[in-house]
């Protein structure tokens, strides 16, 4: 598993430039708030369009400004874990988990609902509504929802920032297990050094540019 990202984008007064390729299991993007870390993830996910550059995952090109290649988000197979869990409020946990799973062709899936529930310890939550979940539970369901869509790469945008200390530890443990037990690379954004020290992996510093 590998990915290469080489993008440039001007957003208002910010100029975001990022160039990195990696074969490691976990890459941590570190930098101050406003450096454009989230924008880099959004470009990889296809939610915003780089002005220039190239994005490839496992040798497959997702974006290339020179050839005009620009895959829409739904055909990138990139899992995205947001700061807030962003569960669909009108669907129960089970329907949230299966949302992407059902849209993914069977040969792309690499985990089942049962395996996901066991891995994340969320089997008892399946019939609950999202608004009844704690922050940690919601984030675990969000991770499960992303895994079930069969991603080739996981993007995590400060997934601990809306959680208290005990829940952070819970989710960090889950992320460590994804890193060690599942064969999917993680691009992890944070502005917290302690998270990086714990998760290890490759550290890339993103400097805010003007």
């Amino acid at each position, binding site marked *: 598993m590998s990915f290469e990202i080489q993008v440039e984008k001007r957003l208002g007064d910010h100029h975001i430039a990022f160039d990195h390729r990696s074969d490691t299991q976990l890459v941590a993007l570190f930098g101050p708030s406003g450096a454009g870390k989230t924008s880099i993830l959004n470009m990889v996910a296809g939610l915003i369009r780089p002005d220039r550059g190239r994005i490839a995952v496992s040798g497959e090109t997702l974006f290339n400004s020179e050839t005009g290649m620009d895959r829409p988000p739904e055909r990138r197979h990139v899992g995205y874990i947001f700061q807030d869990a962003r569960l669909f409020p009108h669907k129960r946990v089970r329907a949230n988990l299966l949302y992407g799973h059902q849209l993914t062709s069977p040969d792309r899936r690499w985990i089942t609902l049962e395996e996901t529930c066991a891995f994340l310890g969320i089997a008892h939550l399946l019939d609950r509504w999202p608004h009844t979940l704690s922050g940690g539970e919601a984030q675990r369901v969000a991770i499960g929802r992303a895994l079930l*869509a069969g991603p080739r790469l996981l993007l995590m945008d400060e997934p601990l920032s809306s959680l208290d200390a005990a829940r952070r530890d819970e989710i960090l443990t889950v992320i460590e297990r994804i890193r060690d037990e599942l064969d999917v690379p993680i691009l992890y954004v944070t502005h917290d050094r302690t998270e990086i020290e714990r998760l290890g992996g490759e550290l890339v510093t993103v400097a805010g540019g003007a």
Partner: protein
Amino acid sequence: MSRYVGSHTAMLTPEEWSIILLSLKVSLVAVACTLPIAFGLAWLLARKQFPGKVLLDALVHLPLVIPPVVTGWLLLIAFGRMGPVGRVLEAWFGVTLMFRWTGAALAAAVMALPLMVRAIRLSIEAVDRRLEHAARTLGATPWHSFRTIALPLCLPGIAAGAVLGFARSIGEFGATISFVSNIPGETRTLPLAIYAALQVPGGEAMVARLALISVMLSFAALIASELIVRRRGGQHVL
């Protein structure tokens, strides 16, 4: 039972029943035909940036602020037999709106449109677009994400808009009377019948009965919209 309900003055005459049914028909057709248009306009105004947006916004809201009689007169000019739209409708489809119940429905629809667009637009603006982004990363095409995320989440607003539009249609008077006149059995809806009964000596009992019915219909519509919003709202945090 009829003994307890009271004398004949408290009962509705067949004529009054037909007035009520006509009003319901006009209002339901008006709302059903306007709903997709109102949703489309609300979506454009809530989500899209385009030149002339301010103009479109103003145009949609116009029936809310100009005198209804003027709206009716404008409809008469446009949809009358000699009007640019009316002529085409008649020549190509054999459809006449002037002095017909369909014309009353058109007048009600135009008057209800701004209220419906407002209610739906608010609910679309309240949908968190980041949920749709999440859906896209999970493999949903824009259309699938619209159908499964945005649309269900603004359903309470659509229902509220429909009910509001229905209540407005039931009460529509000015535009209707100037566009399709006050023809018994064809365009004489509840407010027009009340108006007509007021002109006739001894019509007070009929006025009272029809007024009561129209209050009850509007009241029921408002209760219904409240119930819809509550029932849907119980399922999610908004």
